[in-house]
């Protein structure tokens, strides 16, 4: 089957809170935007039964419900959605390629918002019992199927404890395996106190998973190992829920994007990666706090940065680094006095030497994107362009009509 090729301004990889927010910003900026999500739009937040701390929802909101609102808003701004997985990417150069099973998507900008995937224990037997066979990562998905049953939760972070409490509404008993000493948990204090007071919850301290055991059909028990004594505790359960953290979804970006040792994408405060035109947002980034609220902030920055990058690249390509007359690019800042003092030099050039040289003014006050693309030093300065390339830089003290005209190769008549 021949591959289709489709053109977009922006392709967003990942449909969680970060990707959806980036989509809302790009769509609203009237960029032709595609969001690719491998399964359910909404990302990790859809695995959460209650989101209590996302501002604007004083009564809290279900994760799936909240994300459905994000989804609707992105659709309203014309974002296209494709539910499939990305096989590979080519991020270098002006046109980026995002490859899926049937189609190659070409884009000017790629926003990586691929988030994370649940970390596994690596214990024996784990592979045999994933998903419907007894090991789950989603309490909201599998809680009802465990009504009046005994379940094991592995982990003690916010996700583990909050989802564990949610499971007590269905299960008859929720056993929690905690790696730490008795009374020490990784979750917030409020959740911890509520969980310790919950009569349906039972704790096995200082333990990690040693082995998953069962028959061909289903998981039957989990062998926990006490990390201090080495004691093995065979724990019969109907389902085991793993909440032991996440790993970033960045395999397909290796060798193209700068990643941390742990595989997270390195970005600056503008959500720029090392690759021009490629931005990253949300849990896939190396960052301090991973929440819906912070993913939304990242997504907004990435979406705005994408719009700026596309607009500024077009100016650089079609108005600055293109053929035609020699050109002088005045990099200035509207709120800087020295910058304003030099403006008459350029007005005079436009009036007297319009046949020899073209003047382009770049105000860096609102955005210094063009100046960065041209590797310009701090404003005020001038760049002389001939045949699509910068041939000379003039510092503010060197800016005068003669230097500009001789630098541009024009006969000054002197």
């Amino acid at each position, binding site marked *: 089957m021949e591959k289709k090729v489709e053109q977009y301004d922006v392709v967003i990889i990942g449909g969680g809170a970060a990707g959806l927010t980036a989509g809302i910003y790009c769509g609203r900026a009237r960029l032709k935007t595609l969001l690719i999500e*491998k*399964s*359910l739009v*909404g990302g990790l937040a*859809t*695995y959460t039964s209650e989101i209590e701390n996302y501002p604007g929802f004083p009564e809290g909101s279900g994760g*799936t419900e909240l994300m459905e609102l994000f989804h609707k808003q992105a659709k309203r701004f014309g974002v296209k*959605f494709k*539910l*499939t*997985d990305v096989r590979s990417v080519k991020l270098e150069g002006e046109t980026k390629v995002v490859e899926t*099973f*049937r189609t190659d998507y070409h884009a000017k900008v790629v926003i990586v918002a691929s988030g994370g995937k649940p970390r596994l224990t690596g214990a024996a037997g784990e592979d045999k019992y*994933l*998903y*419907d066979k007894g090991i789950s990562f*989603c309490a*909201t*998905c*599998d809680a*009802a*199927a465990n009504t009046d049953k005994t379940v094991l939760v592995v982990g003690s972070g916010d996700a583990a404890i909050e989802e564990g409490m949610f499971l007590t509404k269905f299960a008859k008993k929720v056993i929690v395996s905690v790696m730490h000493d008795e009374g020490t948990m990784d979750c917030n204090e409020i959740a911890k106190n509520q969980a310790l007071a919950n009569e349906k919850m039972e704790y096995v301290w200082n333990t990690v998973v040693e082995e998953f055991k069962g028959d061909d059909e289903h998981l039957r028990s989990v062998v926990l190992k006490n990390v201090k004594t080495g004691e093995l505790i065979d724990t019969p359960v109907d389902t085991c829920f793993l909440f032991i953290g996440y790993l970033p979804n960045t395999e397909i970006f290796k060798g193209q994007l700068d990643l941390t040792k742990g595989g997270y994408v390195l970005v600056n405060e503008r959500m720029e990666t090392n690759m021009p035109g490629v931005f990253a947002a949300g849990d896939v980034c190396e960052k301090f706090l991973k929440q819906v609220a912070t993913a939304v902030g990242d997504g907004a920055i990435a979406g705005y940065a994408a719009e700026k990058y596309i607009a500024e690249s077009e100016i650089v390509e079609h108005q600055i680094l293109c053929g035609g007359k020699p050109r002088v690019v005045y990099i200035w800042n509207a709120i800087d006095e020295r910058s304003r003092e030099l403006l008459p030099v350029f007005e005079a050039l436009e009036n007297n030497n319009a046949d020899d040289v073209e003047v382009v003014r770049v105000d860096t006050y609102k955005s210094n994107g063009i100046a960065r693309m041209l590797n310009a030093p701090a404003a005020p300065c001038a760049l002389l362009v001939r045949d699509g390339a910068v041939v000379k830089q003039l510092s503010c003290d060197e800016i005068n009509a003669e230097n500009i005209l001789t630098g541009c190769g024009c006969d000054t008549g002197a």
Partner: protein
Amino acid sequence: MAEFALDCLGEACPVPLMKTEKKMAEMAVGDVLVVNIDHSCAMKNIPEWARKQGHNVEIEEVDDGEWEVIIEKTK
């Protein structure tokens, strides 16, 4: 290369995945299965499971909260 349909509308986890696994086992390489689901939980495990097996997966959102998971058996 035959195409099969599996109606899992109204069914909650883990039933849709169990049915999908059973149906896929009966099919030949190159056959395509279209699973209709309307429980979002099945969107988390069916595509994940099928991709882990190495099959090709695409999803169409038929309506708000209703999907067709299209799985091409590759081995």
